[in-house]
């Protein structure tokens, strides 16, 4: 391997890793706030790409129908739970939040698709269509079992992923898509050609993780999200609504996943089931950060990207074996380094 090839591989790895990083950060966010290891973020990313491609082709994306179906289900679940707790006065609010709002977004999308909108509008529209999915799924699937064990939540999350893959196939078909690059610029650094798209991916990853860091450390809402993550009962006693914290987390997480979907769509063909491996690899990255640290997750995800890039050069067939095998030493290291803090809690 020459240094040239190594540099190309490293850049390629960083770009792939940055995509994973966005998803990884979303995964950590959801895990800390709701204890759900949300495997379907990969699917959300893939769906964003497919949505954008449909919009580019002037077709009304299947995401719209998906959101409508989920909105109806969520409204139903919410109203039933309100009637059970004898709070019928909240029904109009539920209708507004769970039904009217998603419908409005889908309606807007439907109108706009008939008007041949510019790229920027299509991007925003794709993100707007995708962001309600995870919060709606949260309402339907996770909130009834919010007090379950991490394992139960994880198992449900895996089942949800399978359901989403099936829906993806139904709404988007089996073929893959690739969208127009967001930028055709490219620049040369030390003799290596770096495409504008790669730079865009890395910059987006940096910007979003930076914003998230500021949000958590310097705003009361951010802190309340962390508090919910640390102690649910305690945060309720402070007047923090865990359900609302969860919704905010899901919205933010979907946004991250959506952005990563938009970024990978031009550099890679995205299928209805591409999400699984993206999600899993992001998840490996998240584990490097112990599922709690955002910078850790981002660094881990980029590490996975670079590892994958070099591994596929060495042995393309065994690259996934290499990536997932390496998780074990990482886990052992994480486990050993977190042992210490557990002891401290015991006094």
């Amino acid at each position, binding site marked *: 391997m020459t240094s040239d090839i190594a540099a190309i591989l490293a850049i390629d790895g960083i770009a792939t890793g940055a995509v994973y990083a966005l998803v990884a950060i979303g995964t950590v966010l959801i895990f800390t706030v709701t204890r759900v290891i949300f495997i379907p973020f990969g699917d959300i990313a893939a769906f964003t790409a497919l949505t954008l491609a449909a919009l580019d082709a002037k077709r009304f994306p299947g995401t719209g129908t998906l959101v409508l179906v989920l909105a109806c289900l969520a409204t139903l679940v919410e109203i039933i739970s309100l009637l059970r707790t004898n709070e019928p006065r909240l029904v109009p609010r539920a209708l507004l939040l769970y039904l009217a709002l998603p419908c409005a977004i889908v309606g807007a999308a439907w109108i706009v698709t008939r008007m041949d909108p510019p790229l920027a509008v299509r991007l925003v529209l794709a993100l707007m269509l995708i962001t309600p999915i995870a919060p709606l799924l949260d309402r339907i*699937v996770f909130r009834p079992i919010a007090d*379950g064990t991490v394992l139960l939540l994880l*198992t449900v999350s895996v089942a*949800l992923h399978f359901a989403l893959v*099936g829906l993806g196939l139904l709404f988007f078909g089996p073929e893959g898509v690739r969208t127009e690059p967001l930028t055709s610029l490219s620049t040369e650094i030390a003799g290596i050609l770096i495409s504008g798209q790669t730079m865009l991916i890395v910059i987006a990853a940096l910007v979003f993780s930076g914003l998230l860091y500021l949000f958590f450390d310097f705003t009361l809402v951010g802190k309340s999200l962390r508090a919910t993550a640390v102690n649910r009962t305690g945060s309720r006693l402070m007047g923090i609504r865990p359900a609302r914290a969860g919704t905010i987390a899901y919205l933010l997480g979907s946004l991250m996943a959506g952005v990563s979907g938009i970024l990978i769509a031009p550099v890679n063909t995205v299928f209805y089931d591409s999400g699984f491996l993206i999600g899993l690899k992001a998840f490996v990255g998240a584990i490097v950060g112990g599922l709690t640290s955002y910078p850790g997750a981002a660094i881990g995800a980029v590490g996975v990207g670079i590892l994958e890039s070099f591994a596929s050069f060495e042995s393309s067939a065994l690259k996934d074996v290499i990536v997932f*095998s390496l998780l074990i030493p990482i886990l052992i290291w994480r486990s050993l380094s977190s042992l210490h803090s557990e002891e401290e809690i015991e006094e």
Partner: protein
Amino acid sequence: MTRLHVQLAAMVAMLCLAAAPFLLPPFTITLMNYIGVYSLVAIGLALLTGVGGIVSFGQAAFVGIAAYATAWVSALNGQSPWVGLLLALTLTCSIATLLGLATLRLQGHFLSLSTVAWGLAIGFLFGNVEGLGRFNGIASIPPISFGSYALVSSAQVYFLIWGIVAAVLWIGYNLLDSRLGRAMRALRGGNTLVESLGISAFRIKLLIFVIAAFLAALSGWLYAHMSRFISPGPFDAGMGIEYLMMSMVGGAGSLLGGVVGAAIVTLLKNSVQDYLPLIAKGASGQLEIVAFSALFILFLQWARQGIVPFVGRYLPKLRRDRPQPAPALPRRAQPAPGELLLKVDGAERRFGGLVAVNNVSFDVRSGEILAVIGPNGAGKSTMFNCLTGALRVNKGDIVFAGRSITREAQSRIAKAGIARTFQHVKLRPRMSLLENVMLGTYARTRTGLLASALRLNRREEASAQFEALRQLERVGLGDKPFDIAGNLPLGNQRILEIARALAADPALLVLDEPAAGLRRQEKLRLAELLRSLRNDHLTILIVEHDMEFVMSLVDRIVVLDFGSKLCEGDPAAIRNDERVQEAYLGGVA
């Protein structure tokens, strides 16, 4: 319901199973074969996940290793499937042992994640190893045969598969009802609890992990020779998750649940395939997986515990007989009264920059009750954890009964004769009082894996049961030995912990705040119990806040403050010590 009823029900079930091929259409038998093969993996998971608390997403990889091993032996090298079985089992168990050694010390969900990791890695490997047919798989695997009688058709393999499933269930239930089984069931209580009973948590975890892998291997062997063709698909991560679903649907922790779960998942998939096209024509293929996942999610939302425990609640309780007198378990040679039993010499323990225990020394003599008191954060609990091996001291030496235990593992310290209770009660709430106390006898009993599995342990079990009952009676909880421990009020739970500690026949009893949360009357009774134990020459070390309780009970007191020993003496001297007054008592006592 008595044992006889259970045995009768099992007989009827066996008969029904045996009659099935003669009564049911062939495809139902085919489905039942799949159910049987999947059951084996699900039973293993019920043990591993439900009983041991180790969630594994990777069992499909073990099934795959075994299936490929036997396919390689029989289809590619022309050997008998029985040679394949041998290789499948040894290879799978060896790989499981290696993986277990590497990962079973991981904490919490890191352990589950590691199963995802190796599950995926091994799954990807099958398609990429030269000589194993790559992604096309291995075809023409011969059927299993007994002499010249080959098990080709579904109905022929059926008896082998379900015979194995029945045998595995019998062995599994025997195992759970043995000392090893109780140790496995205690795993979910946490390492500290398990180790404090003289059980090596790691070894029990490894055992249960290898047993689950063994069952997966058995399943893989049957699968390969039943379907006679293998490819990487059925052993990938998705299938690993499906196995987990089966054991969860059936009821994690219930062996029978493994079978029921496998049946439900398989039948559900089959009927989704049958009935979905009637509802959604055209898109049924895509919707199958959606419908299946949705049903599964609904199931987990409404019946988290799984089917078997759910149904079990409506069945009459199993009636049990009070344990009969049996030969006593061997006892430990107790040290002579007044002899030096425990010597702590210059113990120091740091957490980062914080010195939690700083150069503490004291002695405990046989037959006395010694209290350690001090303000919160003075290092009492840390000191206790160092004594019992839950933590290591950074400096200093701890000598128990003439031998240094400074570097010993928790379980070895427990075996040496230190039994403890916990500040936050650590019981197995789902187990009966008797079983909880029987946990204490682990180190005094011997039965191994094979004897447990084949039910050759009855004599020792009877002795252990009787010993446990004796200890329950000794602490005053002897009237309802089969009640569930979790239903006891907190005070009695603390007493139950003492009974469990006594069942280990300890030389030193270490009690961490035994009177916290007790009513006054209960405290008086506890003090009475501890006095009577002292009269039986048991040595007791106690941490407690309640001064009235301590002052009236103990022989000597050690006072800790900010991690250091403040002073030491009899109760009267401590009560009048000015430093103690200032740092701790504040003139109250």
